[in-house]
């Protein structure tokens, strides 16, 4: 591999390995710092069925790639990061790539907000339903705003599906809170 390509892979934070005939993985470029913790065992046994599926993909010897994940791990500083695993076949050679996945982190931020609200709803005393109604309405608008920023103007079909699911869930949550607020003596289901 050329020095230019090695520098490029490092610059875009991709850890790249060539798969040897014996199944071992050899780095083809310097590994980015974030990858350190995943190198505890260079055979990556923790990948489990991902490696099995990748091996099946490589065995077909068709040029292209197959992506797996997202997976999450924690770096030395205790900060969680997400990455994807990519099996590649190019020029009759098998590669395994690991790349950071910032989309997963944005998705986590959205889900975190939605789920925190759902947890509050499930534990708040019924007498507080009126207050909760306002909280859900305001935070629902926050979530829609966050989604618009995350997904941009051209969301993928998968992202549109997620958006639709979140919108439906927010509507459903709002309807349930409305029901609670209008009839606070009703027992919680």
């Amino acid at each position, binding site marked *: 591999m050329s020095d230019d390509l090695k520098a490029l892979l490092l610059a875009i934070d991709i850890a790249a390995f060539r798969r040897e005939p014996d199944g071992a993985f050899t780095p083809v470029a310097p590994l980015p710092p974030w990858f350190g913790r995943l190198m505890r065992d260079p055979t990556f046994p923790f990948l*489990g069925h991902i490696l099995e599926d990748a091996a099946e993909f490589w065995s077909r010897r068709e040029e292209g790639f197959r992506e797996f*994940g997202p997976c999450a791990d924690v770096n030395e500083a205790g900060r969680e990061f997400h990455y994807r695993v990519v099996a590649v076949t190019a020029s009759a050679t098998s590669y395994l790539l690991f790349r950071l996945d910032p989309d997963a982190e944005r998705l986590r931020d959205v889900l975190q907000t939605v*789920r925190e609200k759902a947890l509050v709803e499930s534990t708040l005393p019924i007498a507080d339903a009126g207050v909760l109604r306002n909280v859900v309405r305001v935070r629902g608008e926050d979530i829609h705003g966050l989604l618009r920023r995350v997904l941009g103007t051209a969301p993928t079909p998968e992202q549109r599906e997620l958006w639709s699911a*979140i919108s439906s869930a927010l509507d459903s949550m709002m309807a349930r809170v409305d029901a609670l607020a209008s009839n606070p003596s009703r027992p919680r289901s």
Partner: protein
Amino acid sequence: MIQSKICMLGGFGVGKTSLVSRFVHSIFSDKYLTTVGVKIEKKSVAVGEQQVDLIIWDIYGEDDFQKVRASYLRGSSGYLLVADGTRRETLATARALQDLAQSVIGRVPFVLVLNKTDLAHQWELPESDLVDLATGGWRIVRTSAKSGTNVEAAFDALASSMLTAR
């Protein structure tokens, strides 16, 4: 040395990641952090004289937004089904995930973990439901990731069942 993959399954916010953190790193945080994708951890346990390397797949919690992908379960030798004792609906989610797991990986050992015993005064799970499950052969362990109560016991119970099933 035996190496076995196990999965953590359950609804969101039931404490799957907290149980793994307590078990693997002996730490607990009160702050809820949602999981996206899968976190993979490893810990060795002794079952009798046998060492077992558990490869723990902490899979994101299921809800309306994220359904558990069947492919994550493949190759699992067992799983912990986690429910939150203070949220009754999480038991239904656990039951649905047990159906999914059984359809994907067959009848492998599993343990139902009822987490958050430190919040016993908010417990919502009807004892009759739990009796029905136990009668149906489900192994049930009550845990608190916060205090650490029974966390090792839950993983040990699963590891032991997996060895017996080999």
